[in-house]
Every structure is written in structure tokens, then in C-alpha cells.
């Protein structure tokens, strides 16, 4: 009984870390199935939804559930779970060591310092503005860097404190709109507000979420795929509304 409990707890934790940090449903199911198989339960039943995971071991009359409340993107955690799962498969880790290591991954992994994130958001904004629109005048570059940096920092800071991702996205987009509007009223030469906005919102927009929604639906996850699509539509609406509020003043 002790062992079956530990197997289920470990499998659920691995699945939860993957699902909360950006993995597709098929990958979560696959990794969890490998873990139960390597732990000696090849016939375990695993049911993954976007908002919760269930594991059942038919050998014993037991099943366990874990709810997933928040989803974000942290690929370092996905990588660490993958590495640990490989080690467990190769028998260099015991089940209890594996479980302890997963708990550590869930609590603390190396992250980039905020200055790096800020620099990365500037780079993403400016490079994609030039790549998409070809507008590279100094006024555009500087305003885009400012707007992208401010928008992303506001989003990132708020997202740490508020449980509502959409609110953070709305505020980030609204600030981007304000900075761009300010540049417009300064009367800078060769200024393209549309190009600046398209670049500056790139760190925020739910492009990957939309694509993952289609991918999950295609692999037969007919509940989780559309659920992801709803999440992406809400994000796009929050960002679109944030920008639209400022666009009436041009």
C-alpha cells in the first residue's frame, strides 16, 4: 500500500509539473505512462485534462486526482522532469529519490534574473518589428524598445501577484498603447504607430497557445484542446482591448 501510494503521488507530481509549465497533453500522458511502467505498473490508467489529472492502478483498488489551477511557461522545469524520468528509467534513481527530486524541481529551478528578461523582451519586440514590417527608423526602434520593455515588465510583475493572467496582459497592452500614443504626440519623424505596437506586444501575445490548442485537438484531446483555445481567445481579447482603448486618441 505504501508503494502504490508513492507511485501514484510521484506520477501525479511529474504530470502536474509538465502540465503547469507548457507541455502538451500527449507528452504529459506519455511521460506519466513511462513512469508507472518503470515503477512496475504497466497497466496504470492515466487520464489528463487541462485542469486536472487522474491516475488509477488497476492492480489495487485505488486512484488519485490532482487539480491543476495555474498554467504558465517554464521550459526549464519540463527539461528537468524529462531528465529525472530518464534517470528513473535507467534505474540510477530509486522511486523515493525520484519523488524527492521532483519536489525540489517544483519548488526551485534556475531562472533568468529580471534584467535578462527585460533585455530579452526588448530584443524580441525590436527584432520582430523590423522582421515583420521593415520599419527601422530610430524613432520606431527606440519607442518599440521602450513600449516592449515597459509592457512586459508590467505584465511580469503583476503576474507574480495577481491570479488573473488576463488582467496582467490587459495592463501590459494598455501601457504599450500609452507609450506608443505618447510618441505619436511628440511628433517624431518617420513614426509608424502600428508597426511599433505589433513589435511591442510580441512578448505577450498567445501565439504559442493558439498553436498548442490546435495540436492538442488534433491528437484527440477534444476537451483540453478547445479549453486551451478559450484561454488563448481570452488573452488575445485582453491584449486587443488594452491597445484599442488607446487607439481612439490618434
Amino acid at each position, binding site marked *: 500500500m505504501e508503494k502504490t501510494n508513492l507511485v501514484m503521488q510521484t506520477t501525479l507530481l511529474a504530470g502536474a509539473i509538465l502540465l503547469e509549465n507548457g507541455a502538451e497533453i500527449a507528452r504529459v500522458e506519455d511521460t506519466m505512462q513511462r513512469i508507472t511502467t518503470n515503477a512496475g505498473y504497466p497497466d496504470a490508467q492515466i487520464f489528463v485534462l487541462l485542469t486536472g489529472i487522474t491516475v488509477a492502478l488497476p492492480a489495487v483498488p485505488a486512484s488519485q486526482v490532482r487539480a491543476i489551477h495555474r498554467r504558465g511557461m517554464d521550459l526549464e522545469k519540463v527539461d528537468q522532469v524529462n531528465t529525472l524520468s530518464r534517470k528513473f528509467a535507467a534505474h540510477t534513481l530509486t522511486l523515493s529519490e525520484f519523488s524527492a527530486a521532483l519536489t525540489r524541481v517544483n519548488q526551485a529551478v534556475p531562472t533568468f534574473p529580471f534584467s535578462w528578461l527585460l533585455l530579452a523582451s526588448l530584443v524580441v519586440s525590436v527584432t520582430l518589428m523590423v522582421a515583420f514590417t521593415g520599419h527601422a527608423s530610430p524613432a520606431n526602434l527606440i519607442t518599440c524598445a521602450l513600449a516592449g520593455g515597459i509592457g512586459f515588465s508590467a505584465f511580469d510583475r503583476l503576474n507574480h501577484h495577481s491570479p488573473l493572467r488576463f488582467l496582467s496582459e490587459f495592463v501590459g497592452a494598455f501601457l504599450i498603447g500609452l507609450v506608443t500614443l505618447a510618441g505619436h504626440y511628440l511628433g517624431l519623424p518617420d513614426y509608424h504607430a502600428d508597426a511599433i505596437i505589433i513589435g511591442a506586444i510580441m512578448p505577450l501575445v498567445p501565439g504559442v497557445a493558439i498553436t498548442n490548442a490546435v495540436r492538442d485537438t488534433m491528437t484527440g484531446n477534444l476537451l483540453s484542446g478547445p479549453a486551451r483555445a478559450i484561454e488563448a481567445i481570452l488573452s*488575445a481579447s485582453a491584449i486587443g482591448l488594452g491597445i484599442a482603448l488607446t487607439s481612439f486618441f490618434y
Partner: protein
Amino acid sequence: MGHWLVTTGLLQTLLAYLATAGFGVLLNIPRRAVNLSGWVGAAGWLTYEVLFQLLPTTVDIKLAIGNLVAAVVIGVASGLAARYKQMPMIIFNIPSLVPLVPGGQAYRVVRNLVTGHPQLATHYLSQVVIIAGVIAIGFLIAEFCNHLFLHFSH
């Protein structure tokens, strides 16, 4: 075409490399994967740009074919990178998609709806559907190619 490649093509490749590496940092990918993931993204975007220049069709078909082939390139390159670095594929293919995914279009749909341009909104919505669908299909094809490689290399 040759002239385009050494001027615009080279610049676009560099921009896509920087954008992908930057987006990788935002998604907190492991540090030793940032550089390689940037090049995977650059390869995908260069494929898309070249096809966009060469194809003699309407914009929607260019978008569809360009994104499809670019997604296959990204999928296959991520598969190779993942095996080389012993990391999951998702670390390379998610950041690499950033220049391609229809995030900008999704925002334009909402913005045009709010500001009273429903026709433009429908136009961008159709682009969102085309691009997202085609990228998903491209990844399926790439997965199939990766299985074939694995099958023949053993």
C-alpha cells in the same frame, strides 16, 4: 534571388535568431539550449521568407505553404537538436515558432472588432485559423519524419 538572399535574407535570419533566443529566455529554457534554439528559429523563418518571395500565388496560399514548410523544418531541426542535446523537443520548437505563430493576427482580430472594422477582423481571423492549422499539420509531418530517421539510423 541571390541578391535578396545576401541582403534581406541574411538580415531576416539574424533578426529571427535574436527573436527566438530572446523568446527562449522569456520561456526560461535551459541556458545551454538558448543558442541552438535561436538557430532552429532562424532556419524556420528563413524557409518561410524564401518561400514567400518565390511562390507565385495569392497571399493566403503563400501564408499556408510557407508556414507549413517552415513548421516541418522547425520540427525536424528540433528533433535533431533534441537528440544532440538530450533535451525534450519542446525546448527547441516552442521558442522557434515565435516569428511564425499568429499572435499578432489574433490581437488584430480583437482590435479591429473593437474599433469597428468587422471586415478586417474576419480577414485576420481567417489568417489565424490558416496559420495555426498549418503549423500543427507541419509538426505532425515533422514527427513522422523524425520517426523515419530514428527507424533508419538504427
